[in-house]
């Protein structure tokens, strides 16, 4: 989030409440709809937002009051959407999450949120502290003529 684009980001503080989360996610989805993103893109971005916010509240904010907000910032353009999600927890090391697709981990209860985010997003990178996620979703139905 650098340069002049930083001013255009929509910024939202979200508490751990189903309605608040849904309202924030709906805001991002509405921004994509204004750019006429296809249904598959809306599905992917909505899913990744829920997964990222769920991880932030369930793991990042474990032990913190439910009123502790997670910060969401996003900017939708015709060909991509950039999303930042930052929690106030101590952070984690994404490399420490076991691969849930391995046969021995297939029945594990967790780890799939991160997998889905990595599958759908063109960019999914955590800050060095591990409490902030930067995601970029690229619209798949637009091709560049070079």
């Amino acid at each position, binding site marked *: 989030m650098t340069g002049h684009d930083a001013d255009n980001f929509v910024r939202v503080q979200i508490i751990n409440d189903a309605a608040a989360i849904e309202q924030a996610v709906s805001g991002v989805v509405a921004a994509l709809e204004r750019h006429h993103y296809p249904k598959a893109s809306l599905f992917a971005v909505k899913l990744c937002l*829920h997964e990222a916010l769920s991880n932030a509240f369930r793991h990042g904010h474990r032990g913190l009051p439910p009123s502790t907000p997670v910060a969401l910032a996003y900017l939708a353009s015709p060909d991509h959407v950039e999303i930042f999600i930052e929690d106030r927890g101590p952070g984690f090391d994404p490399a420490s999450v076991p691969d849930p697709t391995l046969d021995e981990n297939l*029945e594990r209860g967790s780890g799939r949120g991160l997998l*889905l985010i990595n599958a759908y997003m063109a960019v999914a990178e955590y800050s060095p502290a591990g409490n902030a996620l930067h995601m970029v979703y690229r619209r798949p139905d637009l091709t560049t003529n070079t």
Partner: protein
Amino acid sequence: MPGQESRLKVRKVDGIVQVEFVDRNILDEGNIQSIGDEIASLIEAEPTPRIILSFTNVEHLSSAALGTLITINNKVRAKAGQLRLSNIDPQIYEVFAITKLNKLFQIVPTVPDAVRSLA
């Protein structure tokens, strides 16, 4: 669960429990917990459960819901029962494929397909 609206439509035909989700979005952890509890009760009520979960109304489903489905599958297997998933939207099927849970669950196109496979 008295006082709580069911999140499932349930009917039993020829000993097979057919479950349809009411919600279009299975994303909220509170709802997922309720759904898991309701289906666990259905499993407990059957000596050898044969259960079909139809996703015909479902448009979105999170990894937390997948975790609950794994728990349900384990409960059914613990009673030597059988579980089928049906009517899964292609976008949701992709979530099963990405997570490789399409290898763990028996997924069939429709409820009649599921019934035939349990007969």
